[in-house]
């Protein structure tokens, strides 16, 4: 094995075997999926206890139409007085409805014996609204009015079709979520793994391991081996996350989505029904469509890996150069700033991308290698032309090679300089030296 290979394998094995790596790699996707699934799970398992609510209906119309459900059990006692009922602690609460409730909607009060949830309040309120609406329609005296209203009621589900690409695109809500996710992921990876490289260079320099190794390896090989090794760690983590998210997702998602909904979604996708007819939300249909569209997901994942590795190597070489020039992490702050600023700028640019993914700001942001990994990944879900992605990748990889070369020059001199912290002017002199 070549020397660089030996160094890569050390860097890789040391990091991948760490407990912290294994834990974050396994727990992160579970955490993310957990957060996504939490509302569903809470609905499924939370609030299982039925709450008794005593209804005092002075209008005489509402109470009989209220329907108990899993959450609420309505008890109707016509004769009960409010004052007496409020003393009954076994009840969850008392719902009082005034005499002219149909005319005056504010004549209803819920007296609760403990804190209530928004869903409980909304559930009661929406039932009351429906009852009031139905009563009012009845009072208009027009036959078949409720059917007429149902026919008129509209639920627009617009599908955007890219005329230039001739294919159905994701709705911008999904693109937004994906773009934000990808952008943040790259931003985090570059910062976290980049500073990991810097810390480890500082450690090696401080512990004089480099002095030992330099009699068998050239400093440039060390630098290259280190950043490639850490890049492999980052790629491993993303790949594992990808597999876990897709795996757990495909195993758990169908369980969570009711079968009926799935059938409706399939019907909508195949064009047999409109979303409205099927009674499902248009955004959900496209979300499920994305989740099941393996081809474009895979393509995006490949882009993610390419930009992750390229962007990481670009920044990691800079971080390594900074690390080589200083003696301690504390000293690195000042030199680190010009390295971290462009990454922060990139995530800010990525946010602006969502307003107009094809603006010239977005375009140039995704071409200049300092910001391109984050900005381009934020743009890709918006289906931008492939040539832009390829150009951006080429620019990124060519400039990464240059950056590694420049960093190698600083590194070679920096790692053997102890004591005084170099100024930017000195760093430039190191780069120019042979």
């Amino acid at each position, binding site marked *: 094995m070549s020397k660089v290979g030996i160094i890569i394998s050390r860097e890789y094995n*040391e990091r991948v075997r760490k407990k912290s790596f294994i834990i974050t790699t396994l727990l992160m996707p579970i955490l993310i999926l957990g957060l996504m699934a939490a509302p569903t799970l809470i609905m499924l398992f939370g609030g299982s206890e039925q709450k008794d609510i005593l209804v005092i209906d002075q209008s005489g119309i509402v109470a009989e139409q209220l329907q108990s459900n899993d959450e609420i059990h309505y008890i109707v006692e016509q004769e009960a007085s409010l004052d007496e009922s409020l003393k009954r602690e076994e009840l969850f609460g008392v719902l009082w409805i005034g005499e002219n409730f149909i005319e005056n909607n504010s004549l209803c009060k819920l007296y609760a014996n403990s804190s209530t949830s928004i869903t409980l309040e909304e559930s009661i309120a929406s039932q009351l609204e429906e009852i009031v609406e139905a009563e009012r329609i009845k009072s208009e005296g027009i036959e078949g009015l409720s059917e007429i209203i149902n026919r008129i009621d509209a639920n627009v589900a617009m599908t955007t079709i890219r005329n230039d690409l001739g294919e159905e695109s994701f709705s911008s809500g999904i693109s937004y979520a994906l773009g934000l996710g990808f952008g943040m992921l790259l931003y985090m990876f570059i910062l976290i793994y980049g500073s990991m490289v810097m810390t480890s260079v500082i450690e*090696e320099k401080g512990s*004089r*391991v480099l*002095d*030992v*190794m*330099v009699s*068998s390896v050239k400093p440039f090989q060390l630098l290259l081996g280190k950043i490639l090794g850490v890049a492999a760690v980052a790629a491993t983590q993303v790949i594992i996350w990808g597999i876990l998210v897709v795996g757990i997702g495909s195993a758990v998602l169908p369980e969570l989505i009711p079968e009926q909904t799935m059938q409706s979604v399939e019907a909508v996708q195949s064009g047999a029904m409109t979303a409205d007819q099927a009674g499902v939300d248009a955004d959900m249909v496209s979300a499920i469509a994305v989740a099941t569209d393996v081809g474009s997901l895979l393509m995006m994942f490949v882009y993610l890996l390419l930009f992750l590795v390229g962007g990481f190597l670009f920044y990691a070489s800079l971080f390594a150069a900074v690390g080589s020039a200083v003696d301690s992490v504390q000293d690195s702050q000042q030199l680190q700033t010009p390295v971290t600023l462009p990454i922060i700028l990139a995530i800010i640019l990525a946010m602006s991308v969502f307003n107009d993914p094809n603006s010239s700001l977005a375009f140039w942001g995704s071409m200049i290698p300092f910001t391109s990994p984050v900005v381009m990944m934020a743009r890709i879900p918006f289906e931008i032309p492939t040539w832009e992605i390829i150009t951006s990748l080429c620019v990124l990889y060519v400039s990464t090679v240059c950056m590694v070369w420049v960093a190698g020059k600083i590194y070679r001199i920096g790692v053997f300089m102890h004591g005084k912290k170099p100024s930017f002017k000195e760093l430039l002199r190191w780069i120019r030296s042979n």
Partner: protein
Amino acid sequence: MSILQVKNITKRYTEHTALSDVSLSIPKGSVYGLLGPNGAGKTTLIRVITRITMPDQGSILFDGRPITDNDIYNIGYLPEERGLYKKMKVGEQAIFFARLKGLSRKEAIARLKEWFIRFGIQDWWERKVEDLSKGMAQKLQFITTVLHRPKLLIFDEPFSGFDPINANLLKQEILRLRDEGATVIFSTHNMSSVEEICDHITLINRSRNILSGSVSELRHRFGDDIYALTFAGQSQSVKELLESMGEVLSLSEGEAGAPSELRFRLNARHTMREAISAINERVEIRSLSEVIPSMNDIFIRAVEGTL
């Protein structure tokens, strides 16, 4: 035959000159001491030899040819500051360094086991480096330095931090490596170790090579023709005798029958043979020997400029 020739090396830093016009020649198969006070330029010279830093002037020949980057694979360098990855396991780390030096994993493990047994640290294979004591870590580092059997070994202060037993073990190993054909350079300011194991030395002070030569030759060169006489008998008469033939430097009377010791130097008109027969007539000679200066004396005298 020299394995390494350093020719007129000069290295300047912005604020000071670390080496000025240093030349030396290291014979193959010798143990070569690089001596000098702190900050004299020893480490800089080593770094120039190992090609960590480039000299401003001068050249270095390795095996008679100008040194190249590939020659560093034939050099094993143990720096003064010990450098190991603290979080790695001992065995793994040793294999890592050995592979970087071109050994296969299998070969590395075989040689390492042998060395670990020799140094009595075979139980440490699975431990982490941060759990090792300083001496243990040093043994490990020594092993990784010599494992690939380089032609030239450079040790920077190899004995610092060792107890006498382990220092002695290390000394034996260094001599054994020399006997197996390696050339050893070691930089130190521990003079007693120089006398015991160095064949040649170079003394560097204030960036210059101020003294070079074989240890025995230097010690005789720096001998001031002083002799030490131990005897039993009348010390006063011997003293008078030697004062007439030269100069008496010191006299310590032996108490309770122990022999007395006297240090003297003869002047040019008298030979040692005359002196011995004259002394022999007055007292009983127990021993007579030339006082050879220790490397420590030479070091101090050379550095203080009293040569």
